[in-house]
């Protein structure tokens, strides 16, 4: 069973954070087909967030076809995301390491690298949503 956490200062809506964390878990293989997601009650009992937030997140995941709700029993994974071929995974990782090395050579310190990364990531995310 996975555990969620909430970053209240990230500027990302809580329900989206839950969605992302489920997708992440699916990607990393922490959740597989047929696994049960934590119940709404358990999630809110741990995170102290509105149950509707969790329901909204689970509904979106269901809409994306990743999970299915079985009334009275729980919400279960129907599809994983680790279909993405491991090769592409490894390739992306190598590219990332190359980029980090370049940034270092350009003279950027850790903080600047992280800031640049976050800024670009955010820009890419909002483009996605739009």
């Amino acid at each position: 069973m996975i555990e969620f956490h909430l970053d209240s200062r990230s500027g990302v809506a809580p329900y989206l954070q839950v969605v992302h964390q489920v997708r992440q878990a699916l990607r990393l293989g922490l959740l597989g087909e047929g696994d049960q997601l934590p119940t709404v009650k358990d999630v809110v009992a741990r995170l102290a967030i509105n149950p509707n937030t969790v329901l909204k997140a689970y509904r979106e995941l269901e809409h994306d076809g990743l999970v299915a709700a079985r009334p009275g029993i729980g919400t279960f994974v129907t599809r994983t995301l680790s279909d993405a071929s491991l090769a592409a995974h490894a390739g992306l990782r190598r590219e990332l390491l190359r980029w980090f090395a370049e940034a270092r050579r350009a003279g950027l310190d850790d903080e600047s690298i992280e800031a640049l990364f976050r800024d670009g990531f955010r820009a890419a995310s909002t483009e996605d949503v739009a």
Partner: protein
Amino acid sequence: MSAVLETNGLGKRYGRKWALSECTLAIPPGKVVGLVGPNGAGKTTLLHLSVGLLRPTAGSINVLAGRPGTTPSQLARVGFVAQDAPTYAGLSIDDHLRFGRWMNPTWDAKLAEERVAGLGLDPRQRAGQLSGGQRAQLALTLAVAKRPELLVLDEPVASLDPLARREFLQGLMEVVAEHGASVILSSHLIADLERVCDHLVVLAGSRVQIAGDIDELLRTHHRLTGPRHDRHALPSDQQVISESHTDRQTTLIVRTGNPILDPAFSVAQLDLEDLVLAYMTRAAQEDRRPKLEVRA
């Protein structure tokens, strides 16, 4: 779907001063409502009116389609935790649960006992010996175990340390998830409200400044930053909530249902705290302006 709390021009006066005036609200069921505002704004007054501890001076109030506090069945449907979670210091936790059972025909003894056990409390301990957080949890148990349709909480976590606060809210959300009660809670701590509430009421200057679904409010309020502008030059469908100017720059917080098309302004999202502060500031400014009274 009938509103869980409905008020119409509700007012309460103490002597000369109006603690609450012209309060008109319609709160839909199934929400966790945050009631926020400065001290003395009338939050406690409104909550006490909704549980029948006060009678209105003006206007009307209906809770679950009934007048608050009038009949045993009405009282049974509303659970209340007053400020500082009052409990009987000389009675044990067990005594309190007995108190709940004898006073409430809808009492769910199993739920109460499970909660107490889950909190790790010794039922024989006197309430006076409990910590603030434990007393708050006891008070919540008493309010929750009668299976109310509406839970009303007056600043339940104001005097609790961060851990006790978090545990209280965890317990509260668990109850909402499991039993589907509507909740109205007042608080200063906007961070907490952001986590648990999906509906907001801002009370300031003894009046309702704004009320609505939080998602909707955040969607319709924006911060506009741009070169110095006269506020009257703005389109009429944009309601300015607060503004500040320097000699070169104007910052506005506006409310509008429509997209903002003026290229001169850069538009940014507000977070809940900014929204609340904008309305509280507006109320404070209105208070300072001299009022023109018509003496009858």
